[in-house]
């Protein structure tokens, strides 16, 4: 039995708390948030303790492990504090806002001998898993050119609108594209160099948009798009051409349900919403994987080193977009 506390009761904190409550090997102990009162509805709904502060939660000896789902700038201080308190850690991506901080967080967990997993949840999405299997089985030969897209509405739910501050969130590259950067590495290995264009600093952050080129050590070429500039709803797509074939996936094309509703009051048109239900949420599978790792030693599908490498490439893209220059990751990467 793993006794878990959750730090943060925003969008992701709520999702994680609800799924943790469904894992038989987990006893969900409590939750905290800033302001602390935000955690109240969740704590009472799940019948768990509400802590007044992260310090209180981390100081509770009952708790074996924590899930960190707070704004990015707090990730490293909380990971480090959790490690020092001897708690295993699951932390939302990105691992950190800066590379050295991320390195430091990993080292603190290694030193304390606690597990660390970063929430690169796309590795647990079945469509992305099928793609990985197809590649590994040689269905399309050696990947040559890869295209990833992740487009969605700006996350307005954050405390103090922190996503709109690139210094805090890293904008659309560290929030959205980071998923695909990690997936790209999962499929294709190491990234050699990065070139990027983005709207960061040129428009309001709520409309951030980036188009990034990456060259892989394998020789493959990758194109990544991330956008808060599309008003048409969340969607993702992948296309990979190899020397033996091509595969394509598009979340809108594969959504088995479209709901179209008449909008009666004042509107002419209706709204269409795609839905793709699964028996088990990838977020649940992700958390169970983390729990299995801690309790049974199952190897992590996404290691702290993977999270650090994805962060490095994301930061390189941000730097390239800012300077207009190619950023090479071959020699130690970027700060």
């Amino acid at each position: 039995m793993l006794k878990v506390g959750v730090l943060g009761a925003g969008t992701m904190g709520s999702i994680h708390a609800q799924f943790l409550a469904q894992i038989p090997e987990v006893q969900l102990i409590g939750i905290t948030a800033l302001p602390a009162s935000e955690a109240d509805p969740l704590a009472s709904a799940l019948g768990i303790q509400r802590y007044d502060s992260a310090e209180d939660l981390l100081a509770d000896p009952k708790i074996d492990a924590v899930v960190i789902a707070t704004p990015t700038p707090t990730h490293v201080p909380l990971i480090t504090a959790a490690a020092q308190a001897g708690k295993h850690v699951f932390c939302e991506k990105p691992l950190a806002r800066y590379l050295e901080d991320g390195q430091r967080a990993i080292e603190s967990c290694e030193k304390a001998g606690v597990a660390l997993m970063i929430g690169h949840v796309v590795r647990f999405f079945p469509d992305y898993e099928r793609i990985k299997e197809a590649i590994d089985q040689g269905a399309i030969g050696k990947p040559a050119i890869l295209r990833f897209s992740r487009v969605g509405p700006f996350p307005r739910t954050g405390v103090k609108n922190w996503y709109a501050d690139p210094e805090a969130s890293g904008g659309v590259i560290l929030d959205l594209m980071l998923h695909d950067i990690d997936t790209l590495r999962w499929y294709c290995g190491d990234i050699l160099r990065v070139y990027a264009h983005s709207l960061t600093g040129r428009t309001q952050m709520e409309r951030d948009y980036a188009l990034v080129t990456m060259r892989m050590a394998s020789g493959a070429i990758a194109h990544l798009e991330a956008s808060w500039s599309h008003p048409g709803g969340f969607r993702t797509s992948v296309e990979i051409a190899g020397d033996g074939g091509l595969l394509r996936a598009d979340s809108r094309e594969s959504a088995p349900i479209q709901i179209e509703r008449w909008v009666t009051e004042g509107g002419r048109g209706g709204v269409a919403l795609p839905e793709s239900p699964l028996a088990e949420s990838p977020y649940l599978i992700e958390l169970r994987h983390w729990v299995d790792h801690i309790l049974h030693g199952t190897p992590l599908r996404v290691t702290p080193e993977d999270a650090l490498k994805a962060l490095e490439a994301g930061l390189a893209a941000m730097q390239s977009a800012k300077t207009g220059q190619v950023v090479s990751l071959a020699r130690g990467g970027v700060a």
Partner: protein
Amino acid sequence: MKIAILSFAHMHAHSYAHSLLQLPDAELAAVWDEDAERGQAMAQQFSARFVPDLDALLKEEDIAGVIVTAANADHRDLVISAAQAGKHILCEKPIATTIADAQAMIDAADAAGVKLMTAFPVRYSPPTRRVYERVRAGEIGQVLGAKCTNHGSMPGGWFTDKEKAGGGAVMDHTVHVADLLRWMLEDEVVEVYAEIGNLIYPDIHIDDCGLLSMRFASGVFATLDTSWSRPPIFPTWGDVTMEIVGQDGVLILDAFRQNVEVYSQTQNRIYWAHWGSNMDLGMIADFVRIIREDAPVPITGYDGLKAMEIALAAYRSAEEGKPVSLPLT
């Protein structure tokens, strides 16, 4: 109006010939080809005369215009000869393989007072033109960026011969979308970065993958995937797509999406039967119109040169490993 086709080396010549057959006010009068056997076969297929001697064909006074569909590197000599003979010219894209060749062609046409039009048929695709109109009307506000593709299948033949084609997938597939962006944005590319590789067909020894990033003078950025990444099993030859992000919205174009999916057990194949309008017919009709009306050329030799320059800049960028400024020096 009598039109001649100079060379069937480029497969688009077939479609242009078909278009001429459909136009009431034009005819395919003569064919010349550096490959006499091919030229004769094509002339027969399209009920035209095969003229083995280029100079003789160009001396025929009733031929008003020529369509040059030779291999890319052969455009220059044919266009200059046709211009000097006083013929109006529609030249297949890319206009040439070097800036010097393209400039010489433009200069020859100017000196002779003939029209030189670059064949960018996608401008005549009705979905593409609608997007152009919407962008120009400001329907998505100020344009900020664009994600584009011009994927294709590996064409083989002279397209993979650097001498004849001037390059592989990047040379073949940069210019259409580069031209569409210049047209829609009324702006010029000032910087190009590219990653290029021979990653899909190791035996062709020329680039089959290309990914360009462009920056326009206004600050708009755009990417373009030029790869020959559609395998032979894919149900169609390729695509032209543009996803244009503006201040007030996004416009998404998949220019050849008007298809019926066919799963043929009897023919043992899956294909997309295109039911969208024939853009080649629109372009050939316009070429005939500008000759007849003595109207300005809608897509000039200069447009051809500027689009090709972006492909050349991409190769230079890949070679130097850094962004390259335009115009090229």
